[in-house]
């Protein structure tokens, strides 16, 4: 492995004393909570800085915490192929508050951000092509939010699930 998680976060915090709001290391994984406005700057630094070199954006995920004022975590998992270390960046976003896009830093973010937008409803400011990707274009809900019921919205077209009271004759 490359840099150990603490050293990684130290380096990041040294360069962005303001933008890194929190840091944590758990199970060997480094996590940095980034101020939403500074995301692109931090991301660019992570990608370009000599020893970090996070050239590979593994994943973007969003986590919904409905009771928090800034209810969404948008989580970026970075990996450095040359240095072989990982880093998790997090930003908080309120409902309707756009997160700056990182497509200019890692083009791989294109579809990943689209998916987050589609399923969680987090908008990405400056994304070149922010369309729904999994659901159809005029779908009215964001299905991964916690308030969305697992069985689907009630006014959706009836699904195939049929309930059979005992004794129902089989057709």
């Amino acid at each position, binding site marked *: 492995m490359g840099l150990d998680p603490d050293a990684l976060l130290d380096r990041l915090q040294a360069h962005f004393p303001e933008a890194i709001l929190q840091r944590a290391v758990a199970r060997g994984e480094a996590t940095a909570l980034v101020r939403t406005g500074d995301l692109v700057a931090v991301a660019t630094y992570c990608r370009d800085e000599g020893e970090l070199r996070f050239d590979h954006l593994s994943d973007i995920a969003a986590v919904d915490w409905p009771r928090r004022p800034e209810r969404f975590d948008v989580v970026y998992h970075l990996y450095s192929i040359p240095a072989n270390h990982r880093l998790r960046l997090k930003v908080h976003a309120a409902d309707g508050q756009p997160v700056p896009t990182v497509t200019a830093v890692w083009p791989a973010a294109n579809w990943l951000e689209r998916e987050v937008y589609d399923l969680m409803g987090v908008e990405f400011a400056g994304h070149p092509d922010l369309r729904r990707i999994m659901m159809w274009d005029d779908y009215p809900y964001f299905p991964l939010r916690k308030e969305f019921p697992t069985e689907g919205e009630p006014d959706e077209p009836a699904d195939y699930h049929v309930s059979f009271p*005992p004794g129902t004759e089989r057709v």
Partner: protein
Amino acid sequence: MAKVPVAPMIDGLKVTFDNLFRPPTTIQFPEERRPEQARERGMPVLRSFPDTGECRCVACGLCEVVCPGHCLEVHAQPEGGDRRVRILEAYILDASHCLFCGYCAAACPVEAVVMSDIQDMAGFSRRNMIFDLQQLMELGRRFEPTYQATKGAVEFRLPDPDTESGRLLENKPLDLSEGPVERPTPVAVPVRSKSV
């Protein structure tokens, strides 16, 4: 395609020509079948006691709880006013939602629901995929000989005999001095089964 076709292409022809004289690997499905594997996970069926014909199910509802596809429904009624005695009223399997994961069979404490070798289910209606207690028991009776034959290997979730995972608390080892019972019977628990 600047070059003229050369030797490697002829080698390829040789491979197909060789295969022309090898016996075919396909089997004629409905007549011939592959040898069945002991752990085969087909449709879940219900076993019953051969002597009385009663279903083994004790209506504990564990299978319903562990089912990831929510395809099982166990309906039980307290008998009379006695809430401790539950009677199996209906057992419904919606095979069109079944994932064939085998969790129900693994969880069943009395080996009532087991994974059979029934693989070829087809129907013209979704309702054909819904099986009730009587049908599941009938299928279970047909499967019973196979189950007895492959029982040891079907024991699917016992990775290691040394695992003392049966104990409830780590500091309170389980007393196994009685030894395993030969056949788990519903009498051992305060529930009893009754087929409807």
